[in-house]
């Protein structure tokens, strides 16, 4: 296989690029998708076991980074995309938590805990 720059295929150029799969510059943002998948799998968890601070912080960081990935030089579409998903899954969880807190089940538990403390 010829290795001169002119005859390198697009794939080879990508693999060898300074922000390509051989560098941390590729894998660190790529791994952010793990947060999205963990968030999606957490949609199965019962709302009463979700952490509000964690999900709010994910929404905040997701939104801020979605904006910044469009503002930095060069624009980073993949970073923007992953952060939109981080913010979205975080937001879905926050909505689930808020719904749970307004539910009868939760109010019942609050009453029970107050009764125990009294």
């Amino acid at each position, binding site marked *: 296989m010829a290795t001169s720059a002119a005859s390198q295929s697009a794939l080879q150029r990508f693999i060898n690029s300074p922000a390509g799969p051989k560098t941390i510059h590729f894998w660190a943002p790529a791994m952010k998708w*793990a947060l999205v998948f963990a968030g999606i799998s957490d949609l199965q968890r019962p709302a009463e076991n979700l952490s509000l601070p964690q999900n709010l912080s994910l929404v905040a960081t997701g939104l801020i980074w979605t904006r910044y990935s469009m503002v930095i030089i060069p624009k980073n579409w993949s970073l923007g995309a992953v952060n939109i998903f981080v913010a979205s899954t975080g937001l879905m969880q926050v909505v689930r938590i808020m719904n749970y807190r307004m539910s009868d089940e939760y109010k019942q538990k609050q009453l029970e805990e107050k009764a125990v403390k009294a």
Partner: protein
Amino acid sequence: VQNWLRSLRLHKYGHAFIGMEWQQVVRMTDEDMLQNGVSTIGARRKLLKVFENVMRHCDENHFWGPVANWGIPLAAIADWKKDPAYISGNMTVALCIYSGLFMRFALAVQPTNYLLFACHATNEVAQLVQGYRFLQYNKFGGNKQEQEQKVEEKPSTA
């Protein structure tokens, strides 16, 4: 750098910045530029303005981006005090891998971003603590201990 100057229509002063990286160029002062051969004050003023914009842009992104990420470790630290039932095993593992990689990333970018590094190092610790608490609770019987305690308490409050 030369292409950048061309886009600013100041490439005639390209000789003043030969062999420099843009990170050095944007830090040059008026005197530096004069010494290097940027003879007209108009050109120097225009360049200073451009440098100022670039510096401000870098400061904002190098600062506010990492600041946004601090929410994650702070949330985890706040959760140290809460019931381990709230911990998501999947999310904790994902965040450990994520922060581990980003600690390396922060040191590898130009210029090195120590604020981002600190944020991810803190988060790594915070998530490992949560991971330990999660395992303690779910795998090693913390869960059962809690249930046994509840069973003991109930008869006394009934």
